[in-house]
């Protein structure tokens, strides 16, 4: 049986729904809420759960598979894969730059010092790493 996904999406969010699904599942994996070998709901089931076009879910699953987070097992469905990195160095670097740029755009006008921003970023990253090391949910 597939693991029920505690996942919600928001319309009106700056991120497209497919991106929200990708982000939510990536985060759940980083936090060990989803673990290696867990089965994901089918495209149809998740589309019905969230009331969104099944092609949107299919696109999100394809993206997660391309990132190496999911494995498709013939006839059985999609499973959380063992940690691996499928993206090229260029692609990872491109995505990191884009994410940092978004962060910079968002905080530029908030008048925080660089140190304050960096400290908070380190805390958040640390939180994810701690959770994945201890294997427990936060």
């Amino acid at each position: 049986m597939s693991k029920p996904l505690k996942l919600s999406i928001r319309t009106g969010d700056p991120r497209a729904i497919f991106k929200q699904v990708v982000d939510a599942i990536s985060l759940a994996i980083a936090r060990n809420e989803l673990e290696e070998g867990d089965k994901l709901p089918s495209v149809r089931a998740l589309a019905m759960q969230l009331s969104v076009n099944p092609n949107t879910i299919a696109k999100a699953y394809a993206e997660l598979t391309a990132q190496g987070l999911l494995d498709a097992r013939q006839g059985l469905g999609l499973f959380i894969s063992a940690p691996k990195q499928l993206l090229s160095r260029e692609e990872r670097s491109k995505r990191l730059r884009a994410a940092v740029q978004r962060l910079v755009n968002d905080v530029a006008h908030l008048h925080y010092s660089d140190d304050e921003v960096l400290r908070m970023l380190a805390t958040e990253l640390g939180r994810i790493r701690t959770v994945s090391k201890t294997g427990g949910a936060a």
Partner: protein
Amino acid sequence: MSDFVLETRQLGKVFGSKHALRDFNLQIERGGVHALIGSNGAGKSTLFRILLGFETPSVGSSFLLGESSQALTPACRGKVGYVNDEHTLPRWLTPKQVKAMQQSYYPLWNEEVYRNVIASFDVDPNQKVGSLSRGERAGFNLAMALAQSPELLILDEPTLGLDVVARQEFLDAVLFCTEIDTTVIYCSHQMEEVERLAEQLIIIEKGVLKEHCTPEDFSARVQLWIAPLEFRELIRAKIPNLLSSRAIEGDVHFYVLDPGESFGSRLGLLGIRDAVSQPLGLANAVRAYLAKNHLGAQQALAC
């Protein structure tokens, strides 16, 4: 056979001195959910009426499932489901009688789908159509359209005036269509529905086809920027592709179409300092895009 479920060529329609549609060239490929968006009076319903052969075009031609709209065969009509916001039905008949009359036209009639939809909208098949609520009539219309197992389903603002439960039923119906390979053309002002369902976005303005792309591509083209209010006039004068701008407290918020990657530096070169961009979702991008039509009214209000 045409790969397009719907096609228009240089289509035009004039009512008196008003162009309802102008040089309209649209091709919609088979499969998926396509959202048609535009302000009130943009020409969406006229387009549907011409496509379905209810209205003759002033110029140009249109095709449904490869057949000319002006000469649709009964077989072709039987493959196209159409639900609009008026949910017009013979008021003196019961749903049971309407179904009995129409069912025989549709060789692929699916009784199970009909019964499921009727049940989910709680429609009494023996009650006169005239005494059904708006939601029940909408449900009955949808049941009739879905039960014919259409290749193409056209929904023209079907959820207008419906409650949240009935709206959800329509959403589920469109999701069901994606499973049975029915192409859906969905016309709605409800951006939440569009965001959940649409794979392609078609934007019409004043009878002209303006955009036809994926929702993601469209969202990426519209940006919101915020700058100190002192630069408002400079922005209005110097920014090409400015969709709209408005003052909010000490800032000016302005929407730009296709700003390009170096837009921030270009603002700097114009002397516009401290400008930042904010991420924008599909609903806000569409709203900003359509708002440029209402700019006159906005400016009048601002004065």
